[in-house]
């Protein structure tokens, strides 16, 4: 991973966008009743970075986003933070293998990421509370992961299309 000043600046910019989106999504009222279901709008930034820069950059941005967003809203080292961090790390490991297979489009990657994150969320909660009652939420979280993953990829696709035509980041991205 070659880090030029321009790349650091652009990645920092996207990290700040991811943090803001994360915080706004966290403080907004609950749309869904089943715990753990949310749109995952932050993944638009994640998918965008994966498409333009690659897995390593996406991993760093995701990891820093979880820590910094929780630091800002004052939930660092709380239970939701632990769940979020381990779900993020767990899903990233499996996503790395999926990306290496190189068969899926951004839609597939986004859906896999959403489902894996939800799956790890449940696993971490079950381990934290030493109780498998939370597994009842798994079917809802799998189905919602597919839907939200698709919607996020759709948004990311439009963002990529707009940036392809307008922005200066194309010269430092891996795809150009």
């Amino acid at each position: 991973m070659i880090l030029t000043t321009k790349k650091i600046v652009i990645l920092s910019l996207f990290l700040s966008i991811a943090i803001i989106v994360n915080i706004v999504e966290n403080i907004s009222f609950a749309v869904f009743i089943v715990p753990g279901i949310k749109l995952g709008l932050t993944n638009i930034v994640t998918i965008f970075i994966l498409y333009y820069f690659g897995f390593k950059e996406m991993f760093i941005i995701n990891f820093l986003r979880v820590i910094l967003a929780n630091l800002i809203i004052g939930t660092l080292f709380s239970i939701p933070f632990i769940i979020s961090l381990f779900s993020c790390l767990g899903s990233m490991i499996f996503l790395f293998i999926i990306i290496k297979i190189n068969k899926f489009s951004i839609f597939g990657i986004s859906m896999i990421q959403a489902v894996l994150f939800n799956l790890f969320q449940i696993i971490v909660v079950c381990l934290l509370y030493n109780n498998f009652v939370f597994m009842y939420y798994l079917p809802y979280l799998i189905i919602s992961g597919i839907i939200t993953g698709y919607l996020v990829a759709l948004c990311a696709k439009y963002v990529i299309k707009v940036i392809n035509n307008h922005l200066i980041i194309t010269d430092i991205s891996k795809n150009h």
Partner: protein
Amino acid sequence: MTLKLNKFDIILILITLLLGVLLLFITYQNINLQQDQVAKVYYRNKLVYTFDLTNEKKDTFEIEATKGKLIIIKEGTHVRVIEEQSNKHLCSLQGWSDQSIAPIVCLPNELYIKVEGRSSDDVDVFIK
């Protein structure tokens, strides 16, 4: 990585949806149909209160949880959280629960309510 939905994505969607529906079906198959049901309140992994869901008597349980006061009420054969301190108030928004497949979970308060049949270890009848 392409921007267009391809056949692998569609296969992935179908397999995952099928898995989700299958799990949903298995979950509903395993609904606890026992008549003698209780709602157990766990705080920090310890059982702190048990509601008897077999009678119509109203019952209330109050606890000083991680984020503050949390009130659980029981009416008929249902339980719900009516007051709690958290960011999203998910557990009070969830409403009534009377089934094992719908536990009430309040992670910020480290509390959950699990509906289940009476333990099989419980003694029903003594014969002398």
